[in-house]
């Protein structure tokens, strides 16, 4: 997950129990991501970010979630770069996701917004999720509409998430303090070692234009600039995480 951890693993004598936990306690199915990863267009959907596990034996005390804003995001069409706008494929992704207030897991929570108050992510924290249990952080996606004149049969949005087990500065990021479910190639402090984003896919229900054939699959990934701006947790303008 984290490059620094790899070095630490090489040169530090970990307790056996921690090593066993890291080896067998983390697997693909435990990745943090949305409970419902595929939704139909034009359908408002209540959902949860499911936190799969802690940082080794350390409990998760907060989570930071960022959706690609579609402004400077990387867009691909059937794997090929698209230089146009997200509006070529989706009419209304901006501000599509809202945090649902819930204190069942974390006491404190708020949305992350852009300069126009559109929600681009959210965070929650303040309690401790036992490392062996899963946790739900609820949110809602409004009715997203795929541009009917486009050939998009689906639009997949990569979600970047940091599960925080200890509040540290960037230098303190390691396998015991934070789990990154993010891209690996953005060259931000929040990169995972390998691509580990979860995703939310909007599936088209309207008819494709006849010229489209079977349609194309669109993917949207956040920019490094957005991750650097939106991944930190701020309260009333003051940054809480990282320190």
């Amino acid at each position, binding site marked *: 997950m984290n490059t620094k951890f790899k070095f630490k693993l090489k040169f530090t004598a970990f307790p056996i129990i921690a090593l066993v936990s890291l080896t067998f306690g983390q697997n693909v199915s435990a990745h943090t991501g949305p409970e419902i990863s595929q939704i139909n267009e*034009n359908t408002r959907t209540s959902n949860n970010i499911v936190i799969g596990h802690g940082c080794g034996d350390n409990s998760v005390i907060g989570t930071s979630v960022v959706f690609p804003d579609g402004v400077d995001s990387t867009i691909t069409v059937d794997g090929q770069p698209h230089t146009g706008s997200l509006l070529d494929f989706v009419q209304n992704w901006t501000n599509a996701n*809202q945090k649902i207030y819930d204190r069942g897991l974390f006491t404190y929570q708020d949305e992350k917004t852009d300069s*126009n*108050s559109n929600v681009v992510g959210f965070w929650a924290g303040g309690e401790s999720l036992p490392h062996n249990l899963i946790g739900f952080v609820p949110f809602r996606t409004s009715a997203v509409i795929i541009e009917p004149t486009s050939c998009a049969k689906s639009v997949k949005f990569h979600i970047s998430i940091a599960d925080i087990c200890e509040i540290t500065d960037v230098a303190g990021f390691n396998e015991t303090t934070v789990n990154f479910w993010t891209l690996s190639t953005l060259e931000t402090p929040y990169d995972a070692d390998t691509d580990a984003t979860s995703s939310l896919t909007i599936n088209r229900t309207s008819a494709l234009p006849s010229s489209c054939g079977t349609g194309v699959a669109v993917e949207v990934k956040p920019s490094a600039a957005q991750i650097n701006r939106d991944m930190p947790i701020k*309260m009333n303008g003051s940054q809480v995480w990282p320190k």
Partner: protein
Amino acid sequence: MWHITIQKFLRLGLMVATAGYAISGSAHGIDNITMDAAGTSRTFTGLAFITCSNDGNGEAENLIARIRDKSAPVDGLLVNLQLYKGNKAVSITDTVSGDNEYSPYVTLHGGSGTYWMIVNKTDAGARVFDIEWHCNTLTGVHTGTDIGVAQFE
């Protein structure tokens, strides 16, 4: 540690107003938004999209909206609101500024889907305004209404 840090920031945060200056995404109305705060722009324009969908109350048939200019009257300075979708559009102006009365609602019968809403004004000068918007079914039942802001400058 998190708990302590959050509490610290919450205490500090109580002294800070949390209201945004632009359009809030979750409500169907906003209050006390300032357009052209510097008072120097003749071209200031707010642009938002509103998604009308079936939230269980029925398919949307129309979008209604209204605007209220809360600033003191200035000759030649009025606020406008326009709605458009596809090849249909409608607009309304609050012709009396500062009287605490909304303009009448305007209705655009565009069915379900994405509508655009524009707010602008007739001249340079700061304007504090409110707007309301709601998606309704054919029988006037409120249904799924969501908004995103594309521009406010």
